[in-house]
């Protein structure tokens, strides 16, 4: 349904773009209908950039994004509008997604004016009621209210509802629950699960591994703009092969286990890999032995100015791909 | 750092080139013919007028094609020759301007720098002091929203006409000759005061308001809260806030300089002060291309130099810009 083939994105830095920064580095992935793919990475991994490129908020530097067989980057005018009927995004901060001086109805009306102008008032209301029901929102509680009168969870649901008013096939959900409270976020997550069973393709962008693990069918782990490991969620989480994935998983705080309490599992050798290292090769001072006493791992800034195609991912088992470690 | 300075310098050079070109073009595309109007004042016979016209056109260099005039202009400009004034023929423009510049500088430099310094100090002091904030700030708003010349006219009326403390126009008394005597300098100061005061007061109001708002912003910033949480006294917090709030004010000065200069020129006209502003008015009235060009040229140079200096100062006072230049971002 949605395919990314060798997509890269570089940003120019400095005066007249004298330096460039590779935010997304040769990423290929696909999302099928009725599938949630989670894109997991730390800050600066390029995960949000990928979401923005899919939503045409940023142009692609190289590679292609195709949706239902059409190249997305060439869409203009009518074709772009038709694309947005089927592909929509919801972002992290629900409060900044609304104009605070209008009631939330305004956000819905925008969609109606842009896309559903030919709908009769009655037909619109009928559709709205059914969509609000899908996202478990009580219309009376929400419509006519201002954004600050509603909870973050309600606002995010309403944004999803707004996307559903269209002929939605694919949703980019960029950190949509990271600002919500624990007691409401899971319900929004479950909503994504419900939508999936109705055939929607969802790209779930998150930094939270447990959320990605909970909801997604397939998982893509990004680091410094490149895919380090991807595949069926059970395989990636159950048998993490890339040292970076393992480092991430071991750092995730768990409710019922303390860090370091779980026995370190011996990883199978990574194909084409050199000695597994926690940090990228070529990083100044990156040695596996010099860990500060408090266990503080320095944030590694890796120079990403050198472009170049990466070595291909290796399929180590059915639907489980890992980047050779030599590549970072 | 060096690269940054070179780049800035090149940008300023480019700006200079375009500004001067525009400066050259504007009077030439003004309606009217300067030689014609000069001759018409002389009320000559028609025959001799034609001969005179040719003579003057040639001596001003106006009898060649326009592109040639442009090249000639740059050629002589680089030799420091700004041409001959039409209005004060045959005085060279450079000497006419040289006579006016000291007046303009003596008016503008103290007005700009003092109002900036005093406005910032006062604004910083008034911020978060309820009583002062509520009483003095409205006045600052009123001052800031006044056009320079209008305040000038008000001051002239009040202190000049009504109270008769300061003279209303000119750079010095009518009966005096420029010389280094106490009497002359006293007269100079008396004439200088009103135009200076009107420039100073408007600027003062603006800087005070800006500073007050910036200080409040800084006092609400995270680092101020952190210092409070660590029990630092208000004195330290305000000192930091002031330092940081000065930075945008430096940029503000760079942005404002063009506007201030324009205002100062108009103020000179209000007080018939013998500076560049007055010269420009005369040059326009007399269709004196060369004088107009010359006067604008000096303004362009002045504004560019001022901006360049502020750019450099900013780099020295704000560590963040230095870091950016080294390319070591967080």
């Amino acid at each position, binding site marked *: 349904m949605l395919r990314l083939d060798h997509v890269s994105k570089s940003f120019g830095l400095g005066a007249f773009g004298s330096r460039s920064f590779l935010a997304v580095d040769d990423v290929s992935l696909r999302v099928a209908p009725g599938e949630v793919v989670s894109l997991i990475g*730390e800050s600066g991994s390029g995960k949000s950039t990928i979401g923005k490129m899919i939503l045409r908020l940023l142009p692609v530097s190289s590679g292609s994004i195709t949706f239902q067989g059409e190249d997305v980057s060439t869409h203009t005018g009518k074709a772009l509008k038709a694309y947005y009927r089927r592909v929509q995004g919801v972002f992290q901060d629900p409060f900044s997604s609304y104009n605070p001086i209008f009631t939330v109805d305004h956000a819905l009306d925008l969609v109606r004016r842009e896309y559903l102008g030919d709908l009769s008032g009655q037909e619109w209301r009928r559709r709205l009621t059914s969509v609000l029901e899908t996202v478990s929102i009580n219309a009376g509680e929400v419509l006519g209210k201002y954004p600050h009168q509603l*909870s973050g969870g309600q606002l995010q649901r309403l944004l999803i509802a707004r996307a559903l008013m269209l002929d939605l096939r694919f949703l980019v959900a960029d950190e949509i629950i990271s600002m919500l*409270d*624990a*007691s*409401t*976020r*899971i*319900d929004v*997550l*479950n909503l994504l*699960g419900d939508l999936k069973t109705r055939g929607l393709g969802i790209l779930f962008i998150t*930094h939270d*591994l*447990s*959320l990605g*693990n*909970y*909801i997604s069918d397939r998982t893509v782990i990004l680091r410094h703009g490149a895919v380090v490991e991807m595949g069926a*969620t059970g395989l990636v*989480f159950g048998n993490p092969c890339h040292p970076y994935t393992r480092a991430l998983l071991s*750092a*995730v*705080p*768990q*409710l*019922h286990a*303390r*860090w370091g309490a779980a026995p370190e599992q011996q990883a199978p050798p990574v194909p084409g890999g050199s000695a597994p290292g926690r940090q990228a090769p070529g990083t100044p001072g990156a040695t596996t032995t010099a860990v*500060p*006493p*408090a*266990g*503080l*791992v*320095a*944030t590694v800034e890796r120079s990403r100015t050198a472009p170049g195609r990466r070595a291909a991912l290796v399929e180590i088992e059915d639907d489980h791909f890992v980047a050779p470690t030599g590549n970072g | 750092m060096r690269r940054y300075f070179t780049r800035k310098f090149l940008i300023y050079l480019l700006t200079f080139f375009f500004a001067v070109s525009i400066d050259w073009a504007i009077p030439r595309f003004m309606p009217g013919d300067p030689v014609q109007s000069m001759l018409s004042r002389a009320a000559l016979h028609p025959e001799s007028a034609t001969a005179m016209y040719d003579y003057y056109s040639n001596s001003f260099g106006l009898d060649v094609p326009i592109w040639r005039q442009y090249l000639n202009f740059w050629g002589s400009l680089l030799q420091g020759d700004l041409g001959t004034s039409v209005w004060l023929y045959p005085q060279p423009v450079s000497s006419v301007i040289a006579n006016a510049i000291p007046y303009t500088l003596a008016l503008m430099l103290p007005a700009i720098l003092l109002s900036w310094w005093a406005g910032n100090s006062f604004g910083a002091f008034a911020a978060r002091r309820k009583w002062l904030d509520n009483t003095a700030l409205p006045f600052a708003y009123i001052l800031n929203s006044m056009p320079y010349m209008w305040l000038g006219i008000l001051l002239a009326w009040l202190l000049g006409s009504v109270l008769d403390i300061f003279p209303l126009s000119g750079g010095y008394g009518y009966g005096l000759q420029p010389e280094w005597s106490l009497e002359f300098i006293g007269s100079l100061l008396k004439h200088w005061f009103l135009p200076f005061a009107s420039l100073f007061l408007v600027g003062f109001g603006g800087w005070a308001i800006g500073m007050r708002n910036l200080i409040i912003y800084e006092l609400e910033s*995270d*680092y101020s*809260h*952190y*210092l*409070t*949480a*660590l*029990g*630092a*006294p208000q*004195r*330290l917090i305000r000192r*930091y806030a002031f*330092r*940081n709030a000065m930075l945008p004010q430096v940029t503000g000065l760079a942005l404002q300089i063009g506007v201030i200069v324009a205002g100062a020129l108009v103020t000179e006209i209000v007080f018939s002060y013998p500076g560049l502003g007055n010269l420009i008015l005369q040059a326009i009235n007399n269709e004196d291309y060369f004088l107009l060009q010359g006067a604008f040229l000096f303004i362009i140079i002045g504004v560019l130099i001022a901006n360049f200096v502020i750019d450099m100062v900013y780099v020295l*006072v704000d*560590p*963040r810009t230095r*870091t950016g230049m080294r390319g*070591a*971002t*967080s």
Partner: protein
Amino acid sequence: MSVQVKDLKVYYRTLRGDVRALDGASFTIADGEIMGLAGESGCGKSTLGRSLIAIDGRMRYVGGSVSLDGAALPLDDQAAMARHRFTAVSLVPQYAMSAMNPTRKIGKLVTDLLRSRGIAPDTVLGEFRRRLELVGLSTDVLARYPIELSGGMKQRVVMVISTLLDPSLLVADEITSALDVSTQKAVAEAVVEFRDRGFVASTIVITHDLSILVQMADSIMIMYAGKPVERASTDAVVSSSRHPYTRLLLSSLPEVGVRYEEHRLSGIAGRPPSLLNPPPGCRFRDRCPLAFAKCAEEPPFVEVAPGHSAACWKA
């Protein structure tokens, strides 16, 4: 007993009246104890943390007392309170990335700060350098501006500054929430390390993330709608919680290994009551599956097992 808080009440002034953000909290923290303070947004955890440091103009001290090593903190007198900050109570703020003056070198900033508090910088700068090295930073950072450091480095510098004078109580406010998992782990471990080395006596770690508390806290206090609802050792809170809110909250957290297909979690329906005019009785009762008639009466926050307190009639 190092930190003793008794019935602390701090409200926010608004145009429509007082918001009872912190409506009576009593607890004690032992020396060397790290207490996690958790709850959802608006539960009063941040207000509690803030009150212990500085009650600003928007807040109103209503009542209650806080004593530190037996001496009362002058919570309602900010000038008197300033003398206790940094030395006795200190804060690692949520905004560590922007907590340092961007135009001052870090070494200069610390010197300025120490001088302004009447402490000769020479007496502590050596220790400052030692501790920077302890958290894996070179002492070069003293000659650097904050912008020259990465986010993780700034976080560590701020932690070292805040704890430089060995405070009796450290409040760490949402220090891990904006961080990536690996940095999050490092920061959490540093908090424990600082406690182990005796840089701080008692610590309050405020967060909405219960799983990070499991990693670092000795005990956890859960708050809801301005009041503590449960307080116990970390293990007891996670495995044998007594308050229905705690239990529902825990059951709504996905963990690595829990999948939507296999085990569908659910959230808590409803929203917390408005704290402008909170209803009498248990504040959770509208959302509580166990609520019964008695819940219209406010349940006291009492010990239900040794070292385990809860505010619920059914606990």
